[in-house]
């Protein structure tokens, strides 16, 4: 919510957001079949690849093999792919990438899965993609990184935070980096905060703020909406401004085109 305050009068809004992007692991760029094979891959799902942002990863490139960012980016562009950044890489590679306008991205936690949209495993393409977190703005209380060096990998994300007891007035619960699930009721004057979504299976009478670090895809779900205030990624609504016909109903709250929507969930 401090985001909302700080930028309310500014002519722009600066928010963190998470995108799913493809990572192109390059191991042998000099192979004459490199682009023809890539082109063939793209031809299998042209709509999926059209103007898709791509992050380059040169970790598999043997040491000493030169890499010409400028021409490589151009060739990708000819195939309809837009190189947006470099993941990891040596100091020289990073400097060269910056020189052609690519962003430097931290390697995500864990191993990057191989991407094959037509693998036929039944999963959606997004599940096979590497998750690249665009430098999201950290929550207000997080210390700023000291230097742009490779940071310690953050701990593995928790899937969610579960609270089973009723949440009394005056309590504040923050689910850092994950969703918050509350089984019981939330009293007036209590405050729920989550970087992800918030699910309340009791009556929500307090405040609920989802996506507090800027995730606009976060949502709030509750069994009975009697909240004092709801907010997603800093956009909020107080109870006085909520429609009467959604009060005490099962609803979901989400952002769409920069507006906060509160819709009943039909059972």
């Amino acid at each position, binding site marked *: *919510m*401090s985001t909302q*305050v700080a930028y309310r009068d500014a002519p722009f809004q600066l928010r963190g957001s998470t995108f799913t992007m493809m990572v192109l692991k390059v191991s042998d760029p000099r192979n004459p079949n490199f682009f023809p094979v890539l082109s063939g891959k793209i031809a299998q799902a042209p709509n999926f690849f059209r103007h898709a942002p791509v992050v380059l990863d040169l970790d598999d490139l043997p040491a000493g093999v030169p890499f010409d960012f400028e021409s490589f980016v151009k060739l990708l562009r000819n195939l309809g792919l837009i190189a947006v950044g470099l993941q990891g890489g040596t100091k020289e590679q990073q400097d060269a990438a910056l020189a052609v306008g690519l962003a430097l991205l931290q390697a995500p936690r864990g191993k990057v899965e191989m991407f094959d949209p037509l693998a036929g495993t039944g999963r959606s393409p997004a599940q096979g993609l590497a998750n690249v977190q665009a430098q999201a703005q950290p929550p207000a209380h997080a210390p700023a990184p000291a230097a742009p060096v490779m940071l310690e990998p953050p701990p593995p994300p928790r899937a969610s935070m579960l609270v089973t007891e009723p949440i009394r*007035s*005056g*309590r*504040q619960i923050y689910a850092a980096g994950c969703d918050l699930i509350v089984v019981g009721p939330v009293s*007036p*004057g*209590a*405050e729920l905060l989550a970087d992800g979504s918030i699910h309340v299976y009791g009556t929500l009478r307090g405040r609920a703020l989802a996506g507090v670090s800027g995730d606009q895809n976060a949502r709030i779900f509750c069994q009975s909406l009697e909240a*004092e*205030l709801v907010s997603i990624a800093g956009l*909020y609504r*107080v*109870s*006085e401004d909520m429609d009467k016909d959604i009060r005490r109903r099962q609803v979901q709250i989400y952002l769409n085109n920069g507006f906060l929507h509160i819709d009943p969930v039909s059972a």
Partner: protein
Amino acid sequence: MAKIITMTSGKGGVGKTTSSAAVGTGLALRGFKTCIIDFDVGLRNLDLIMGCERRVVFDFINVINGEARLNQALIKDKRVENLYILPTSQTRDKDALTLEGVGKILDELKKEFDYIICDSPAGIEKGALMALYWADHAIVVTNPEVSSVRDSDRILGVIQAKSRRAEQGLEPVQEHLLVTRYDVERVEKGEMLKVDDVLEILAIPLLGIIPESPAVLKASNVGMPVVLDDKSNAGQAYADAVGRFLGEKIEHRFIKPEKKGLLDRLLRRTA
């Protein structure tokens, strides 16, 4: 020059918030630009009594911490012109208050308002000290019973020792006594202290006597300052107290048992 009025008591549950709402609203009705601040961090109630709990977005603590501007946290009353409420945080505690932070906000409010009412929490600890430190006036709310009187005596001592005016050797804080929940019939029966007994112990000027009245609870529950209920004796008594605060000579009412007619007695009408 803006005046800071602290509503305090030492003891809890005597009617500080009800009185803050009523006196603040009364001053605004008289045309003074008035702001009521809830100092009871963690036990936020003023917004309920004032009926604006559904409009709270930012609070006093957000402003102290620089997370919101004062104008974003101030809630304008919908019924009375010139009346504003600064709600407090329910999720924080008294440690969120600092003398400098509070002083800075009061200075800012002083530029815009005629009267600033600080609704103190009970006790004599940090929250109460923060609410009384910057006071120009203190309204001490007391119930006509011994424990409340003793606690009021204690808080008067704190005001005389720990307020800014005391610390800096300025003209002392002006003290006023507001006796609330005064039940004439029980006083007559000797079950409650008389106003005179209270005055003898506390020895400060009497601002008003608010009769025990069902209108007070009713008003609280619907979020309306009782002073707006001008049919009720409590509402009228608060309006009188505001007049006295502004220097008017108004006789005290509701301190003698009503002469009840036969019909009244038969119907057992109260209040």
